[in-house]
């Protein structure tokens, strides 16, 4: 690990000053410390933001749910309103990592976590995400776990977060605070596809802090759930996953939000699947037809061709689980 200076600001203003000077924010640290030890990350100064008052989970006047960026994964997963209103969020969280890591990691840090691509983590391998222009060892290497959607010739690494998949399905908004003030954008806008600059993973300006994630109000009643498929039963990243959110009244699907994980360079909204669902009546046939659209546009690599069918099956099963069969 490279040497670094450490500072722990007492308030948000001081944190922003330290961030503007080039300090690197650290929240839970579960990704950052790991990558620093591998020398993938080499911050000169760590700005410990764990003392900032950004930990609340609260419901706003419009029934939106505002989750402070420093709320821990375990606390958000256990939060009564999250559990009752958005099972897809609590399930995605509790299917992530381990109880220990969920006690450490924060919500803001979760969406900022970096890819598990082994070539990214190996400083002796070519990786455009780690060093722009150095090439991509995964393209011709062992790429079983890599992405099939949103890839480019420069990068095929997946975004590893389960939570981000659930939040993308719910049109979650990211609130930011920087030297120039506050701004907000959707999570889908915030996380960037690799294109020719895979080292740019998000639209975060220098010194900016994530202050909160906000799930906007959704029509009620709302059914939702998260399914994660992986190589072992627990404590593993997704091969494929599906977040399904449905609003059904009078036996008709009025609103459908479906997103996939483990397959995209960013959390992947399955808009073609959603279009098939809206206005239709739940049935096994519908779930199968809609799920067949899930891998639309997929570009499998040498070792991950199985993900195309696995994704469709994952989506179909989770549509049936959440939507039921009349």
């Amino acid at each position, binding site marked *: 690990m490279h040497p670094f200076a450490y500072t722990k600001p007492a308030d948000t203003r001081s944190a922003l000053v330290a961030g503007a000077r080039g300090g690197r924010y650290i929240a839970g640290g579960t990704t950052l410390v790991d990558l620093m030890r591998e020398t993938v990350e080499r911050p000169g100064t760590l700005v410990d933001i*764990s003392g900032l008052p950004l930990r609340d989970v609260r419901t706003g006047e419009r029934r939106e749910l505002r989750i402070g960026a420093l709320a821990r994964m375990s606390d958000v997963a256990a939060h009564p309103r999250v559990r009752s209103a958005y099972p897809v969020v609590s399930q995605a969280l509790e299917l992530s990592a381990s109880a*220990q890591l969920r006690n*450490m990691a924060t919500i803001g840090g979760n969406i900022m976590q970096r890819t598990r691509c082994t070539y990214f983590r190996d400083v002796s391998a070519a990786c455009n995400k780690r060093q722009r222009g150095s090439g991509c060892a995964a393209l011709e290497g062992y790429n079983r776990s890599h992405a099939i959607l949103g890839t480019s010739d420069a990068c095929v690494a997946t975004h590893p977060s389960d939570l981000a998949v659930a939040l993308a399905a719910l049109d979650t908004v990211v609130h930011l605070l920087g030297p120039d003030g506050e701004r907000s954008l959707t999570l889908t806008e915030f996380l960037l596809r690799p294109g020719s600059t895979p080292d740019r993973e998000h639209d975060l300006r220098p010194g900016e802090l994530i202050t909160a994630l906000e799930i906007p109000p959704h029509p009620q009643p709302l059914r939702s759930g998260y399914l994660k498929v992986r190589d072992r039963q627990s404590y593993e990243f997704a091969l494929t996953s599906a977040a399904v959110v449905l609003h059904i009244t009078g036996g008709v699907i009025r609103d459908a939000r479906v997103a996939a994980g483990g397959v995209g360079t960013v959390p992947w909204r399955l808009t073609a699947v959603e279009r098939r669902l809206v206005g239709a009546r739940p049935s096994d046939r519908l779930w199968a037809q809609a799920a067949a659209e899930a891998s639309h546009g997929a570009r499998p690599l040498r070792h991950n061709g199985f993900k195309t069918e696995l994704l469709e099956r994952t989506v179909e099963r989770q549509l049936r689980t959440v939507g039921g069969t009349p």
Partner: protein
Amino acid sequence: MSAEISNDDPDVEVPEVSRRGFLSTTAAGGVAAGVLPSSLAAGRADASAGRAAPSGGQSSALSVTVNGRRHQVTVDNRTSLLDLLRERLALTGTKKGCDQGACGACTVLVDDRRVNACLTLAVRCEGAEVTTIEGLAAQDGERDGELHALQRAFIEQDAFQCGYCTPGQIMSGVACIREGHTGSREEIREWMSGNICRCGCYVKIVNAVEQAARGGRD
């Protein structure tokens, strides 16, 4: 190694012949070379775990309570809580397995929550209360030294073979019971999944957690 610790840390009591000192001595003689698998990172601490702190604002003074005892130390900012415990405070019960948050061998409680000590920077533990495997047994009066219910359950259920993951399993199990995630064997398995056992003692580990949870003592 024990001499290095006792020289540097007057607040730490080091037995005359520590287990680590014994192992390092015998390993040097080749006797115990097979005892410590080279794949384990146990003996490898970051250079940053050493006593010498770099200049230029890259070290920090720290006050942390471990097993009820307060320690004031100056650490290189790179030092993990795990290395602080093992290399500086001579609390080697907490194990270093993967050193990357993937195995759970380093599980300790920080402010009563189970965490991976390998991914916790010591400098961030200012003011924290840390509990390690050494702090589980009773430390007062007539019951001094009496094992925690889960420690007894691990012995009674024969829930380990090599024992390397056991301190982490027990610390994680104590938290799992406190959290109330022991409603079924399946629930215990899921909430203990952050602790890997390469000997494959999972069935008996679940037995032990189940037994201690039913016993009610925490």
